[in-house]
C-alpha cells in the first residue's frame, strides 16, 4: 500500500514554509523546546546548587527518623520516619478542614437565609456579620483566636485549669485552660462488635422503613414523613442498644496530671486546632452566606410567589421551593470555598497547629532538605484540590444534564 497522499493536480502546491499546518507544528515544537530548555536550565541549576551545598536530590529522608516531638501529640514517636509525620500532618489538616467546613456550612447557610429575613434586626445583624468577617484577613482572625482568646486570653494556664466535674461523680466533664481543652471520650468496651452489629441492623431497618413509607405514599397518597419515621427507628434501635448492651463503650475521663503540664484521658483539643477551626469556620461562613443569599435571590421571583399562593409556611417555602433550586446554583461556588478553607488551614502555622505546613516547616528547620520537603507539601495540597475539583466537575456535569 502506498502511503503518499493523493493530491489533486489542479490545486497549487504550497511551499512548506507557507503551509499553515506545517507552521503550526513547527511553532509548537519550538515552544515545547523552549519550555523544556527553560525547565532543563532551572533543573540543572537546582541540581548543581544542591550538590554544591551537599543537600542531595533524593527523597530518602522520608524514611529516616523525624527526630522531633509533634506538639500535643503524645502518641507520636520521634523515631518514626518522616512519612509518619507527613501522615499526622495530613490527618490534622483534614480534621481542621472537616470541622471548619461543618461550622462554615451550617453558619453560612443560616446567615445567608437570615440576610433575607423580613425581620429588620435579623437581616441587619447578618449583614454586619458578613461585611465584618469577609473583609478581615483570615490570618488575623486565626491570630485573634489563638492569642487574644487563648494564649493571652481570659482562661487560666494549664496547671490551674478550670475543671468541671460531672454532677454526682468525681470525674471531669470538661477541662478548660488557655492551651488545652478536654472532654470525656468513649473508648472501646468488651462488646463493641455486638453494638456495631446492632446499629448496622438498625440502619437496615431504617432503610426498610424509608422504602415502606415511600411506597405507602406512592400507593395511597398519605403523607410519607419518611425521614421522621426512619430516623425514629434508627434512634430507637440506638437507644435500645446503648441500654441493653451496657459495656459496648467505656468512658475515658480527662484528668489533669500531677505535674500540671498534661491532661490524661478524655478527648483533648489544643488551642491551635480550636483557633484554626473556629476562625476559618467563621471566615468562610461569611463567604458561604453571600453565595447562599445570591443563589436564593437568583431563584425566579415567581417561585416564591407561587409558594405563597399555595399557602406554604415560611419554612416550607424555603425547604421545598427555594432551597432546592438555590442549592443547584450555590453548590459549585460553595465547594470551591471548601477548597479555600482546606488550603487556608495552612495558616495554622502561626498558632503552632500541627498541620502539614507547620510540620514541614519544623522539619525543614530540623535539617531536612527544603526543596524535597516543599515538593511533598505541594503534592499533598494538589491531591486535595484535584480531588475536590474532580468531584466538582462530576457534579457540574450531572446538574447540567438535569437542566437541559
Amino acid at each position, binding site marked *: 500500500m502506498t502511503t503518499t497522499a493523493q493530491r489533486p493536480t489542479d490545486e497549487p502546491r504550497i511551499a512548506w514554509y507557507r503551509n499553515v499546518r506545517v507552521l*503550526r507544528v513547527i*511553532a*509548537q515544537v519550538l*515552544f*515545547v523546546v523552549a*519550555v523544556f530548555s527553560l525547565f532543563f536550565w*532551572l533543573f540543572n*541549576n*537546582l541540581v548543581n*546548587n*544542591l550538590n554544591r551545598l551537599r543537600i542531595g536530590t533524593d527523597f530518602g529522608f522520608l524514611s529516616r527518623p523525624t527526630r522531633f516531638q509533634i506538639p500535643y501529640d503524645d502518641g507520636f514517636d520521634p523515631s518514626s520516619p518522616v512519612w509518619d509525620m507527613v501522615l499526622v500532618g495530613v490527618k490534622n489538616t483534614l480534621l481542621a478542614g472537616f470541622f471548619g467546613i461543618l461550622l462554615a456550612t451550617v453558619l453560612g447557610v443560616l446567615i445567608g437565609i*437570615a440576610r*433575607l*429575613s*423580613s*425581620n*429588620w*434586626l*435579623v437581616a441587619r*445583624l447578618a449583614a454586619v456579620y458578613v*461585611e*465584618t468577617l*469577609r*473583609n*478581615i*484577613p483570615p*490570618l*488575623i*482572625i486565626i*491570630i*485573634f483566636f489563638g*492569642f*487574644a482568646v487563648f494564649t*493571652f486570653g481570659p482562661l487560666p494556664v494549664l496547671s490551674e485549669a478550670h475543671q468541671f466535674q460531672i454532677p454526682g461523680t468525681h470525674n471531669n466533664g470538661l477541662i478548660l485552660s488557655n492551651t488545652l481543652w478536654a472532654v470525656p471520650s468513649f473508648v472501646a468496651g468488651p462488646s463493641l462488635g455486638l453494638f456495631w452489629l446492632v446499629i448496622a441492623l438498625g440502619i437496615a431497618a431504617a432503610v426498610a422503613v424509608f422504602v415502606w413509607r415511600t411506597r405507602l405514599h406512592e400507593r395511597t397518597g398519605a403523607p410519607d414523613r419518611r425521614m421522621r419515621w426512619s430516623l425514629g427507628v434508627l434512634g430507637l434501635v440506638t437507644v435500645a442498644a446503648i441500654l441493653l448492651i451496657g459495656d459496648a463503650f467505656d468512658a475515658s475521663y480527662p484528668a489533669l496530671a500531677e505535674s500540671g503540664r498534661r491532661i490524661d484521658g478524655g478527648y483533648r483539643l489544643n488551642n491551635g486546632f480550636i483557633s484554626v477551626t473556629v476562625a476559618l469556620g467563621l471566615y468562610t461562613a461569611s463567604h458561604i452566606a453571600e453565595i447562599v443569599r445570591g443563589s436564593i435571590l437568583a431563584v425566579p421571583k415567581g417561585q416564591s410567589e407561587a409558594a405563597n399562593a399555595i399557602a*406554604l*409556611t*415560611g*419554612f416550607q*417555602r*424555603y425547604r421545598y421551593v427555594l432551597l432546592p433550586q438555590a442549592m443547584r446554583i450555590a453548590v459549585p461556588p460553595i465547594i470551591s470555598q471548601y477548597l479555600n478553607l482546606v*488550603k*487556608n488551614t*495552612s*495558616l495554622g*502555622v*502561626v498558632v503552632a497547629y500541627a498541620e502539614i*505546613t507547620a510540620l*514541614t*516547616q519544623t522539619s*525543614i528547620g530540623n535539617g531536612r532538605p*527544603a*526543596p524535597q520537603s*516543599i515538593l511533598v*507539601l*505541594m503534592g499533598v*495540597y*494538589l491531591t*486535595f*484540590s*484535584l480531588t475536590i475539583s474532580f468531584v466538582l466537575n462530576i457534579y457540574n456535569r450531572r446538574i447540567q444534564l438535569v437542566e437541559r
Partner: protein
Amino acid sequence: MTAPTVPRHGIITSPGHWVRKRLFNSGLNTVLTVVLVPLVAYLIWRGVTFVFVTARWEPVRNNLTLFMIGRFPRAEIWRVVAQVVIWSSAIGLAWGAAVAGAKARALRAGLPYKEDSAIAKARRNGAILAALALLLAMAQTWGPLILFGVSFVAALLLQRVAARTPAPQVPYVWAAVAVLAVGGFQIVSGFHGTGWLWIGIPIALAASRLLGRRDWRTHRIRRLASLSAVVGVLGVAYAVYAVVDSPGVGWERWEGLRLNLLAAPIALTLAFPIGMGLALARRSSFPALRMVATGYIELIRGVPLISLLLMGQFFIGFFLNTATPLSSLTRAFIVLTMFASAYIAEIIRGGLQSVPTGQIEAGQSVGLSPWKVTRFIVLPQALRNVIPPMVGQFISLTKDTTLLYIISIAEILYIRNIVHAQAEFRAFGIAETLVFVAFIFWSITFSMSRESQRIERRLGVGVR
C-alpha cells in the same frame, strides 16, 4: 423562616408601623426580636466600653509610624511623605478623569448626568474616612495631618485639571498615573537598582493601551503622556543618583502597612500581562501551549499561597545562578506575581468565554487574522467583563499580603510583634494592636468592595 404575609417593600406610615412590620410581623420574628435586642445591646455596650474605657491604646498610639512604614530610616522619612503625596495626586487624577469620562459619555448618550451627593460619597467611603479619623486621632502629631492635608489638596487640584479635559480618556490617564507613580516611586524610595522601573513602565503602558486603544491620539493625552515620560526619566535619573547617595532606603526597607498596600497593586500589575498570556494560551488551538498553561494555572491554584511563599524562601535561590542571592522580599514578590498571574489568567479566561462566538466569526468574515481578531474584537469586550472579578482579586490579594508575616517579612502583623517586644509594652494586652490592624484592613477592603459593586452597576456587567 420569613413570613410571607408582609411584602418586603410595603408602605410604611409611621415609626410604630415600621416596628410592627419589620420586627414583630410574625410569631417567629417576635421571638427573634425579643431575644436579639438585649443581646445586641450587650454586645454594643461591651464594644463601646472596650474601645473607650478598658482598652489601652498606648502600644498603637506610640508606634503609629512603626506600623505605617516599619523601620525606614527616620532621617529619610520625607521620601515616604513625598511618595504618599504623589500616589494621592495620581489617584486624584485618575478619579477626576473617571468622573469627567462618565460625564462625557452621559452627554454623548443624551442622558442627564448627576454627580453623587457629598453625603452619598461620604457614606460610600465611610470606612476609609473612619480609618483616617482614627489614625489622625491616634497620631497626636502634626506630621500625618499635614501629610493628609497636602495630599488631599493635591488630589483635588489634579482632579479639577483632569475633569476639565474635553475628551477625557480614562485608560490613558491611568497610564499617565501609572508612569507618574512608578517615577515617583523611584524618586522617593531610592531603589537599589532601577530594574523594576524598566519593567514597570512598559507593563503599565501596555496594559492600559490594551484597555482601550482607540483614542490614543487625543492631544491632551499625548501631552499628559509626554509629561509623565519626563517625570519618569527624571525618576530614573534620581534613582540612579539615589543608589549612589542614600543607602538603607531601598527595596529592603519596605515595611509596615506601606508594604501591605503596595504589594498587591505591584504584584497585580506585573501579573496582568503574564495572566493574559496564560489565558490566551489556555484557549489556544495549540495543544502544547494549552497544556503548559493549564498545568501552570492548576498547579498554582491548587496549593496554598503559604507553600508557594515557603518555596520562594527555600527554593527559588536554587533555581537561579545569580551571583548575589535575591533578597527575601524580592523572592516574595516573585511568588506573589506567580500566584496572582494564575488567578488573573482564570479571570481573563472567564472574560474571553463571555464574548459571543458570533463576534469572532464576524471578525474572521471581514478577513482579520487570528491575532487581530483577538486583539481588536475579543480582548476589548472581554476586559470590560473582567473588571469586577479583577477588583475582587485585588481585594483578596491585599488580604493575602498578611501572609508575608509567616516568612518573617516585616509587614504590619510582623511590626505588631516588634511592638509587643518593646520593653515598655510587654505587659500590655495584645488584643488592641490586633483590633487596630484588623480595622485598617477592614476599612480598606470594605471600601474597595463597595466601590467595585458601584463599578459593576455602572458598567452594567451581566445586564446588557
